[in-house]
């Protein structure tokens, strides 16, 4: 299983339903937040589960680590709430406040994946902007690495 959540910035309508979907089942301990670019486009900030995860490298206790399936997860017991991962994240995805003394962390809805379902933020996406795709397929498709057409003249945003 090497699937990740991808964002198509051109489609997102800024409805925040991904943030709501992430918030509710995790008891308001959600990783997905929302931002707006210059009042011209919406940008859901979701964890990208990076190849070289800066948050995992910054973690002093080894709570945050990359699992065998490539998903970066935070173990509950080892985490001491030191903010290292939050400051290390280059995308500013980890919300900068602790809840229950630990930071929120996306685990790609690991309760749903074994049942053959896709993560909540992707299922609820109203515009089809968030997709759940195979990493290799997405990387092979040259069209997929793009700059938003709608934002071309203003902000450059390149997807990972």
């Amino acid at each position, binding site marked *: 299983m090497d699937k990740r959540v991808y964002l198509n910035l051109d489609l997102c309508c800024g409805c925040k339903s991904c943030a709501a979907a992430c918030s509710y089942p995790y008891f308001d301990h959600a990783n997905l937040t929302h931002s707006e670019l210059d009042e011209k486009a919406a940008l859901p900030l979701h964890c990208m589960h990076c190849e070289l995860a800066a948050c995992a490298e910054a973690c002093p206790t080894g709570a945050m680590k990359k699992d065998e399936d490539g998903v970066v997860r935070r173990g509950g017991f080892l985490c001491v709430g030191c903010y290292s991962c939050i400051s290390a994240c280059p995308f500013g995805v980890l919300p900068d406040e602790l809840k229950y003394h630990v930071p929120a962390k996306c685990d790609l809805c690991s309760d749903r994946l074994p049942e053959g379902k896709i993560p909540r933020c992707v299922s*609820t996406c109203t515009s089809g902007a968030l997709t759940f795709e195979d990493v290799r397929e997405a990387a092979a498709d040259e069209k997929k690495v793009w700059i938003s057409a709608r934002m071309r003249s203003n902000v450059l945003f390149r997807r990972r």
Partner: protein
Amino acid sequence: MFCSMGCGFLIRTVDGRPRELDYDLDNPVNKGSLCPRGNYMLELLNNPSRLEGARIKLNGSFYSSTFDIALSEIYGHLSEIKRAHGAGAVGIMVGPNFLNEDIAQVFAVAKALGIASVDVMLPLEDSLLLSGESTKLSSPVKKLSVEDIADQEALLVVGDILVRSPVTSKMINKVKYGVRGSKIIVVDPERSHTSWFSTRHLQVKPGTEALLLAGMIKAITEGAKKGRALALKKYFKEIDLKQISERTGISTQNIIISAKEFLSAGKAAVILSSGTRDKRLMEMAKLLCLVSGEGKGVIPFYACGNSLGAYKLRTVLKSPGSLTAAEIIDNAASSKIKALVLIGVDLLRIAPTATVKKALSNLSFIAAMDMYRTSVMDYADVIIPLSSHLEAKGSAVYSGGRVQHFEPVSPPAGSLAVRDAMAKIFMKMANAKARSKKLDPSVLAKKALKKFTPKAGVSVPALINEVKAVRRQKPLSGFPFQVMLKDDIVHSSDGSITARHYWAMRECGIPYIEINEEDCRKLSITEGSRVLLRTPWGEVIVIARVSSRWQKGTVALPHHFQEIREISNIGKDEATGLLCFYPFAGSLERIS
């Protein structure tokens, strides 16, 4: 029930208790997508502020009671007041957030009890659009359903549909990116989320949407040589495009080009979002479709799930000459009505006007039924907790006239369905025989919905005059800012079913005001500073948000706050007698 889209969803239960929301990926309407409001729908069932058990007020404080005693208390008071002051002294109001069966039952029981003053309290932002449902034009306009949006070549979107019903964005994206050359024309005073996706954004002055559509019809009929456009040409002769251009703030050329783009598309739709507070917008949209030929249709969206169903039932089931909701409030204020039963209607949240406040203090008996503890319950004598639509079986009518059926998720705990409460009140009066067939609410609702037919009515010249006349109001001196009421994406309508939801409160729990950057600079207002907004109806302190979305001289506030509704212009529409929002003005002052 959060809008008239009618999205499908699944709720997983464990041992009969709701546990988790799941996405219905096979649903033809939403394909699994849900808006933020839909995502925390489970809170309708498990919110800690849900009422449980009936309450009766004695000597100023509430005491727990059984449903039976509380309902006989209601029946006793109603019949007593009826005997003393006549049948006209009792009123019943029901909200639009209920299923058809519940609303039909309210009307049936009221009829059986001999109460004529019974009405649905429709959401204020829907009133003007809904009144267009019953106006019939000489030839019928194609009615589109929600799923049809994706097949269009051109869309004319009035208002910010992606905030009101964001699930449409999948379909709008299909139109935008599907076929090369598709047009999306957005008519909205705000540079909104919807306008991001437009190919042409007509940023009109607030409240001139209908006038702009009239201008587009004029542009189409001017060059018409055959068909309906030619037949309607004479009515639009006196309309001057230059005047329209001045009042709407859109150049003549832009109006003509938009009209041509709409006309030249093979299949096109006008999408009307609720909250567009403009009179006769629906009729103008229908006329635009008529004059631009085959393949054009209208699809209106409403603020509450069953607004359309409630409106249709109301039109059919109301006995002729009986009072409307607005008249019931007026009569209560003048003490003609002594007792009022409010079913899912939080009057203080929906329309907190001076008349409503006077009416509530003048009434000698108020029975309030609702899911949550509402502010109107401070005045109530009896409180009955109601179950939500997730706990009842029944149907609702959504956009495009689609009837959708609901299955109960769990049995109502500590609360009653509206239909059961009404049936029990009825049982206090009648013996067991009488109830058998007469009061089957599902049969009644089905029959009534079938009966609904639009009335023939308003002539085209009268329509045009009305549209033109509304815009002639002069601005009041001392109130330089045009105030707009806007929707917030996490709240539904007046917020009576979303205001207590945790995520909604966190995202939008404090009243705010959006002000144009230039106006902010002039008044030295910065992001987050406190601002005093003064209108002819009152004052409110709100937090400022500097924004480039609005034109100079226009400010916007979310309308789901009671404080904001208190200072807004709520009036009665003359044609239909429904309460609605009117455009209003205000002045700003920085206080810290």
